[in-house]
């Protein structure tokens, strides 16, 4: 286990993703990445009686696909690291009750996807666990209810507002050889540059993403061209150009290799405001689409920077500004003779 400069971990052992699992809602299944997900539900309620149950169904299904593809049982897992956007992360808590795997609940808002993966890889690397199951979920209706208004409340969609992705992603981190390797992780700092509008999270989170990406390149000594792709979680069409400009000003041009999961998951004609957001946004893009492309080798090295806005429903009304965070994880195609 080694620390590279201030914020980056480079794992001593080859750490792999044994398998991934994804489940998405109807809108995501009709988006440009359709076909990269293991399960697509036809309706937003996923066959359950309410939204809370629907989100649990998504996470449960993503995990079951993940375990089945890895050929493992719940009992083989040493740790379950999970988080979501509901109050006190109840979706993860209730799934942990069902699978009975020792559980550490985590919350980093929409950055939880890479937070759990980075922590999972670190725990496997340092020998405290052999198999770690990481999972996150978000559901459009539970997030609307949590952070905004009742689902059926009618109001205009703000142009800077994002649309929470309905879905769940799961991955198993292990030292057993797999097709995709987890190489490094850069843990982000909380950055707040004074944006207080909860309908403009792209602008609020861009400095946090820029800070983590900048630090990652400082720590590793690499340049953007060393990556086939750098994806951010959910900066949307508003935050993405701000991120690029923030980094260009510091002399780091990622324009050629950067994409945003929130813009990848929906097509421009879907009614999603500025783009997708939520824990599941970066999770289903990474564990569905990027995992597939890394496994087949059409992408060799990808930096996934999941961004999170650390607010609740009350803080913006209390005139607090929005603290944001971003965690980066480097995924690579596994090579022969990885040591």
């Amino acid at each position, binding site marked *: 286990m080694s620390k590279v400069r201030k914020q980056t971990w480079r794992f001593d052992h080859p750490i792999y993703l044994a398998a991934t699992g994804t489940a998405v809602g109807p809108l995501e299944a009709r988006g440009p990445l359709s076909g990269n997900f293991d399960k697509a539900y036809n309706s937003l309620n996923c066959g359950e*009686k*309410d939204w*809370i149950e629907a989100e649990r169904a998504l996470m449960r299904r993503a995990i079951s696909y993940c375990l089945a593809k890895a050929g493992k049982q719940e009992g083989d897992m040493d740790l379950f690291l999970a988080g979501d956007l509901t109050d006190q992360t109840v979706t993860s808590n209730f799934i942990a009750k069902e699978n009975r795997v020792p559980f550490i609940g985590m919350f980093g808002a929409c950055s939880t996807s890479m937070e759990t993966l980075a922590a999972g890889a670190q725990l496997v690397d340092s020998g405290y666990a052999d198999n770690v199951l990481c999972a996150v979920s978000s559901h459009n209706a539970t997030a609307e*209810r949590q952070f905004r*208004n*009742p*689902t*059926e*409340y*009618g*109001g*205009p*969609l703000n*142009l*800077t507002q994002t649309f929470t992705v309905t879905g769940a992603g799961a991955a198993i981190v292990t030292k057993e050889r797999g097709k995709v390797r987890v190489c490094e992780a850069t843990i982000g700092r909380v950055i707040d*540059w*004074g*944006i207080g509008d909860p309908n*403009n999270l792209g*602008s609020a989170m861009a*400095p946090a993403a820029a800070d983590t990406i900048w630090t990652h390149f400082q720590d590793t000594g690499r340049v953007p061209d060393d990556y086939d792709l750098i994806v951010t979680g959910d900066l949307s*069409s*508003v935050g993405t*150009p*701000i991120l690029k*400009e*923030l980094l260009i*000003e*510091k002399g780091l041009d990622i324009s050629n290799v950067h994409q945003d999961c929130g813009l990848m998951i929906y097509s421009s004609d879907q*009614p999603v405001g*500025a783009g997708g957001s939520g824990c599941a946004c970066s999770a289903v893009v990474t564990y569905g689409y990027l995992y597939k492309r890394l496994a087949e080798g059409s992408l060799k090295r990808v930096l996934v920077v999941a961004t999170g806005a650390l607010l609740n429903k009350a803080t913006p009304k209390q005139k607090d500004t929005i603290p944001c965070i971003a965690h980066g994880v480097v995924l690579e195609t596994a090579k022969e003779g990885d040591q």
Partner: protein
Amino acid sequence: MLNDPKNYSENIKPFQPKIPYFMNCLKAFLVGGFICLAGQCFQTLYISLFHFTKQTAGDPTAATLILISSLMTGFGFYDKLARFGGAGSIVPVTGFANSITSAALEHKNEGVVLGIATNLFSLAGAVIVFGVVSAAVLGMIRLFIEQIF
């Protein structure tokens, strides 16, 4: 210079999407106008068919609009109308009904008393509070003026 935490919210203004005020107003005018037209049709209908007067037809007209709006909320249409119409569908009584019905639907699974009843006015409560307070204040002013003259 964007890398300036103190003036960040000012400096990112060129990156923010322009709000199409004119189109928003036009859409609000059309949707709001259509809702008012429907209300007028109901009022005329109640006056000509059921012998209501212009004064008394107001109550069944509002009730009809509320019923239709609540049903549309339940069937999942009203939020789509409002996404297009903006203020045009929020300001009329139908928007008020939508705020109450949507809150009731949202909290249905928490029980009738602690879920629906407690949260029914979570959005509409502000309208009621300021409606009652402003009515009381204006009533006092009117009383005061009448006493003087």
